[in-house]
């Protein structure tokens, strides 16, 4: 199994206690506090059909930040699939959309991927955390539908 099929890795932040007390600061520190979950690939199942949604790690070059996500593969034959990909930034107290929204409207195979991009960011003296959030849904042949979401790994980037 590929390393990308890491499902449901739950990471508990050392700052979780601080966050729960409601004393989060206005500063965007690199590592977001609290508990968050990485689903680089996440399975969604309805009846006998199952599909894998993915959210890739973030890429950064110059003043451009790109994240990709979508549907990887399916077992069975879904009749309709969509996915929405958003590059998000952590600004206390949570994750907000930073990039435009990418979208796929076809089912795998082949793998269906769309990008979400921040095209103009300015280099900063401090890091900001970015990650990809993908939401996907599909319908199988008997009309059953399901949806899921996936969060890519967090990358700290000195650009805002």
């Amino acid at each position, binding site marked *: 199994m590929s390393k990308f099929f890491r499902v449901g890795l739950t990471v508990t932040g*050392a700052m979780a206690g601080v966050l729960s007390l409601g004393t989060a600061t206005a500063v965007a520190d690199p590592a977001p506090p609290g508990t968050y979950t990485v689903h680089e690939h996440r399975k969604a199942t309805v009846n006998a059909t199952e599909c894998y949604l993915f959210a890739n790690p973030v890429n950064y070059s110059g003043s451009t930040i790109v994240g990709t996500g979508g549907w990887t593969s399916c077992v069975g034959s879904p009749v309709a699939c969509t996915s929405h990909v958003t590059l998000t930034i952590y*600004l206390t107290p949570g994750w*907000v959309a930073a990039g435009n929204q990418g979208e796929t409207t076809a089912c795998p195979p082949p793998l269906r991927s769309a990008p979400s991009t921040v095209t103009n960011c300015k280099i900063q*003296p401090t890091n900001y955390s970015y990650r990809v959030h993908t939401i996907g849904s599909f319908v199988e042949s008997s009309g059953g539908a399901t949806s899921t979401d996936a969060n890519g790994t967090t990358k700290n980037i000195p650009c805002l």
Partner: protein
Amino acid sequence: MVTFTQCEQEAAEIVRERLRDGELRNWIESASSTWDIEHAVFLQRVKTVIAIGLFNSHHTAEAAEEPVPHPAQTALDALREADAVGLFGVLPADLGQSADVVKWLQLLSTGLTARSAIMWERLIQSARIILDVQLVLPQEGQPLPTADDPPLPSAG
């Protein structure tokens, strides 16, 4: 009791003094250009954020009945450490001609939408950069100042 208008004048003086540094001036100009915000408007908003930081530092000092030795440094501390609710919470009811701008900034700071959260972060980060006299600004095209992979917190 320091008024908000006095803090705005103090902020304008700090910004005027700090922007004599050509490197900092270029950074602010290129930042507003990169973010596609009119430079004069952006700088005016940043001054108001600095004034809010200054008012907070004066307010804290008055409560402790101690003078503020370095207003810019204490304003920087306030903008780094205080949450947005606290920053705006101590402001007086009478904000003079800046009432609408401060109200707009307070709305931004709540992060109601992704766009407003990012705009607030850009404004407050620029205010911190202006106030931080020790800061070495990162240069475009230079190697990244820090490792780009986050230190993941330990499980449990």
